């Protein structure tokens, strides 16, 4: 299986702040990959680097086997639906399709027309008059009709209401099934991604915390509940992702590939959302030391 996105020590710095730090990724093709993390974790930065809107400060990134945005051929391979789905407010829907047809050699006219029809949009309507959901659908149509190998979407549903959100993701999934394209989309809402993703990248504090197929992640992460104890006393193959303690009880999320033998733990499975939340709250070394500095 080839990689659609391969990053090596990728970093991006704005002034003195690292928006993305030492990111190493290998996203295989044929997947719908969710990029999830809290606001400001570096999701948009990572996607901007992937589509070549920005150049990295350190490291390298390859998308569909080439440097992002290096040439027209490279650009043709990657579709991008940017955050807030920008469109030309004064251009009509038909003119947007015309734009797509003229600027993309692999443009699928039939696909674009059919989608606009199915959405019930008037081709003569100006994009500035569309609702947020309709505009997002138009941007998605442009991204799909380009017939890319990889479609990248940055928070595509963030500004949509629940119904429009569902419709948008629905059409995205239909298109994925129909055109066999890889998708990389970001969101800070895990429940959006849960329905559509089979691959996951969790980004927290400008760093990749975990990456893998959703199925594997769910199979290897468990929640342990039991009497209060020191987390360092666990077997070596159990990696603590997050831990919380009350006076009597410890609740841990651990990553392990083997069965839990200790009978004092009660073991429960984890949903994707809990898994992601566990990583977001992870007792990170650097964060712990930072907290200590604050206390001093």
């Amino acid at each position, binding site marked *: 299986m080839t990689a659609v996105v391969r990053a090596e020590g990728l970093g991006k710095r704005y002034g003195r702040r690292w928006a993305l730090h030492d990111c190493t990724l290998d996203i295989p093709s044929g997947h719908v990959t969710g990029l999830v993390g809290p606001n400001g974790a570096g999701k948009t930065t990572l996607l*901007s680097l992937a*589509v070549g*809107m*920005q*150049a990295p400060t350190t490291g390298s990134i390859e998308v569909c086997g080439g440097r992002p*945005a290096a*040439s*027209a*051929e490279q*650009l*043709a391979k*990657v*579709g*991008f639906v*940017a*955050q*807030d789905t*920008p*469109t*030309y*407010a004064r*251009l009509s829907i038909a*003119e947007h399709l*015309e*734009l*797509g047809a*003229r*600027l*993309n*050699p*692999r443009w699928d006219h039939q696909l674009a027309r059919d989608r606009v029809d199915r959405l019930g949009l008037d081709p003569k309507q100006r994009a500035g008059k569309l609702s947020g959901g309709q505009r997002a659908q138009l*941007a998605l149509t*442009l991204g799909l009709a*380009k017939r890319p190998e990889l479609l990248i979407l940055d928070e595509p549903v963030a500004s949509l209401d629940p119904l429009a959100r569902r419709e948008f993701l629905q059409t995205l999934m239909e298109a994925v099934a129909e055109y066999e394209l890889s998708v990389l989309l970001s969101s800070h809402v895990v429940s959006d991604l849960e329905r559509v993703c089979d691959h996951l990248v969790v980004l927290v504090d400008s760093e990749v915390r975990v990456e893998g197929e959703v199925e594997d992640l769910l199979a290897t992460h468990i929640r342990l509940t039991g009497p209060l104890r020191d987390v360092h006393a666990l077997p070596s193959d159990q990696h603590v992702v997050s831990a919380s303690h009350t006076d009597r009880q410890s609740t841990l999320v651990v990553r392990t590939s083997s069965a839990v033998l200790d009978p004092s733990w009660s073991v429960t499975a984890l949903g994707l959302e809990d898994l992601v939340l566990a990583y977001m709250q992870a007792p990170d070394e650097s964060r712990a030391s930072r907290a200590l500095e604050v206390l001093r």
Partner: protein
Amino acid sequence: MTWLTWRQLRAQATAVYAAVLALAVVLAVTVPRLTRLGQGQVSLFDQLTRSDRNLYYAGIVVLALAPAVIGAFWGAPLVARELEAGTHRLVWNQSITRTRWLATKLVLTLLCAAIAVGLLSLAVTWWSAPLDGVTGSQRGSLPSRLTPIAFSMRDLVPVAYTVFSVSLGTALGVLLRRALPAMALTLAVMAFVQIAVPLWVRPHLLPPTSQLVVLGRDTLDSIMADDTGTPVRIGVRPAHRGDWVLSQQTVDSAGRAVALPSWFNSCVAPPPPVGVASQRSEAPDVSGCFSRLTAEGYQQHVVYQPVSRFWPLQWAETALLLVLSALLAVFTFRWTRRLS
């Protein structure tokens, strides 16, 4: 990309071309009368009505403003408006590189602007040709086409200013990432450039000619007096009508710049009204005074650009502005590559 650029420029281009056409029609309608006037025996200037003169100066004002305005309204928003609306993130992810996108946009916009101002300049230059530099039989004149008032509103130079202005606007838009501040700054910089070039640059584009002129009744243009009515400076007419006089001063037999001798004051008395330049036609007969000045070795040192330099200066200024435009374009391309 041509299609998208034209689609974005269409409305503004139509408006500008309509305005150019309207002005051209007004000029064309008034030409036959001017031609008739020019064939008469009487000085053309004396027969001009106030509205003729207004139209003449309107042509100058329109051509002075057009490059700056087009630069501000077409150049400044060219990239900046895309950055503001976020549409650069849409268009930069179509199968076209940023460089080609910008090249198409910039070249088409430059062409559209240059042709509009070129046509405007052609119409105004053609209409103004018989009027440039005409003088009245008694007093009054219209500026000759080499003087700063008319030079950059004739023939080729307005087109060069337009190219420069659009390039400047685009560069500022890319740099500031905001259309409105870029527009304001484009207008401000263009105002400065259009004042600075005739003051400090154009006189030196080609080395000026200098000449010693004998002072006399036939070369005298004016005598300037100070507040007390004492003559302080003499002005002579250029050798050829339409020469652009850069500076002139009275020199003695050794060639040094000097003040007028003290006897000159009483010689030309009675002095003209305080602070007013006396026109040569109204001046009292001062031939004797000038004969004495010449006898004592006084001459007028005149530095000027001869009227024959009109086209060399046009080409030189055009080349200068095009080189500056190219530098701005290089900056715009480099900077655009760094945008996100």
